[in-house]
């Protein structure tokens, strides 16, 4: 299936101090196609994370809509949005691992409610761990990992269900150049199975991308297409 995700007149505003609203995203219209790497750059605080979270169904837009395969998922009720999130793999900027769980259990987390057997969940998670070269840390608690290892764990957790939509927020921020390249290659690999991959990152990474990408810049609430 050729999936795509579209933002139509998407705006997000947060209420700030003194009841003033601060506009973060302003009337964004864009379509992210499947099978290609989509890179969103922009200065700190531009709203990259907000855009990813809105598309992933973690928050609702103030106006406009997120359309996935002709379905306005941002308008769906809570229960249906829960189902939409099952199709998405999310990598958070701050990883958001569950500290009481081991690395392996963190990666198993998205598989548990899907109704697979424990052994299936385990073997899938181990395969994902091997992809990010963290198999030797499987039994360690998440809070004992370094920053880069946490990010690798978060990437493995997002990819373990082989989702059609991947939203990665600064996925390589705490990694060295070599690990960063490997993880970006892994995300590129997902475009090979026709997934929609959207990565929010700094501009510095653009010249180190291992393959072609659709690049956008988010600034002052507006998203501009940079180059292919």
């Amino acid at each position, binding site marked *: 299936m050729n999936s795509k995700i579209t933002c139509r007149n998407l705006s997000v505003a947060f209420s700030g101090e003194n009841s003033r609203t601060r506009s973060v995203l302003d009337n964004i219209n864009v379509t992210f196609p499947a099978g290609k790497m989509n890179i969103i750059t922009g200065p700190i605080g531009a709203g990259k994370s907000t855009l990813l979270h809105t598309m992933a169904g973690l928050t609702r837009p103030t106006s406009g809509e997120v359309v996935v395969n002709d379905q306005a998922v941002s308008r769906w009720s809570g229960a249906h949005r829960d189902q939409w999130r099952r199709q998405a793999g999310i990598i*958070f900027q701050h990883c958001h691992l569950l500290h009481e769980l081991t690395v392996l259990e963190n990666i198993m987390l998205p598989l548990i409610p899907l*109704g697979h057997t424990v052994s299936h969940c385990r073997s899938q998670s181990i395969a994902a761990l091997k992809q990010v070269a963290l198999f030797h840390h499987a039994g360690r608690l998440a809070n004992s990992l370094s920053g880069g290892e946490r990010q690798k764990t978060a990437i493995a957790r997002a990819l373990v269900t082989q989702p059609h939509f991947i939203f990665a927020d600064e996925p390589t921020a705490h990694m060295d150049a070599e690990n960063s390249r490997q993880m970006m290659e892994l995300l590129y690999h997902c475009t090979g199975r026709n997934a929609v991959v959207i990565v929010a990152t700094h501009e510095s990474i653009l010249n180190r991308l291992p393959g072609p990408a659709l690049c956008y810049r988010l600034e002052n609430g507006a998203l501009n297409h940079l180059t292919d």
Partner: protein
Amino acid sequence: MFNTLQIWAFRDILRRPFESLLLAVTLTFAIATVGTLLLFPRAVYDTLTVVLKATPSIILRQVDPTGWRPLPIRESVQAATSVIGVVSVRPRIWGMVNGPDGPLTVMGVQQEGLPEILADPLTRLPAKGQAIVGWGIASHDPAGTLPLEGAIRQTYQVIHRLPEQTSMFTHDLVLLNPLDAQQLIGLPQGYASDLAIDVFHEDEQDAILSDLTAAFPWPVRCVTRRQSAGIYAGGFNRGRALGAITMIPAVLAMCLLVAVNTRKSMGRQSDLGIMKAMGWTTGDIIRLHLYRDLFVCLPSVALGSCLCFFLVYGPGADGLAGFFLGWDTLPPRLYLETKGAVTVLLEVAGVMVAPVMASALLPALKAATADVHELIEGAGRR
């Protein structure tokens, strides 16, 4: 046998073993304590109801300024049967005597007019020099004799022991031949201790009293079955007061437990947000919490209920009766009225478990309506 979510819930419990164990132990003892305090009066009430149903409608005694005195059997029966509404009159020979371990109740029995409670357990009646004893009376003599001291001192051969479940009131009872009983108690020939009178209808008990009193040429005192129930009920006030005092720490412990559980669960809202971001639905999260709490609560309810049952109906009843009712010599045997006991246990389990379950489910339900982004924001930088 178990699905993946249930296994995950069990694994979740093992991640915090001491916390889960503490919850289970507290819940078990809270259920056992509150259950016992509610079940014990219920069991005593059920026992009394059963026992009183088997007792005569009215017990009539002759009194004088010094207290009660024996009744002449022939004249008394004649006077009582002359009252309209009286169905049967049974003269009883009984009294208190000293046994090897303390005071015992002695009763003279014969085939005619045998009390209903004793009709089934008695396979034969005591002949002269023989005794049938209640479950609570210990025989220290290997030869099976029982020395008793009343108006005379006499040793009797124990020929039978009443089964434990006969009645709460037969534990300290010694059944003798009527002639032996009369001699031991010191009753003159042709006299009885009191009259057991049955009336045609339960409601006539109180109405018939004035006619009954007037039918006797000497002063008499009558006690109806209802009055007896009231007298015994009064004896349980001490138990109720002690029960209320004992229940306070159990209820306080429960409140603390629920407060801690709620606080703990609310503190993990960010984890719920992450789980939802990972594709867990609200239903999945509620099921996980439900399984996790049931894995702790169900064994606690089972264990607490067993403990409570053991204390009320099992060997623990001796201690309880001594503590609540001051029965420090002979252990009672309480009747188990299954429906009533199960109702009490279900009530206790519901009252104790429901708040714990609610305290765990509340955050999950709250998370159902909250924005996932807002829930995760609470996690801060991880």
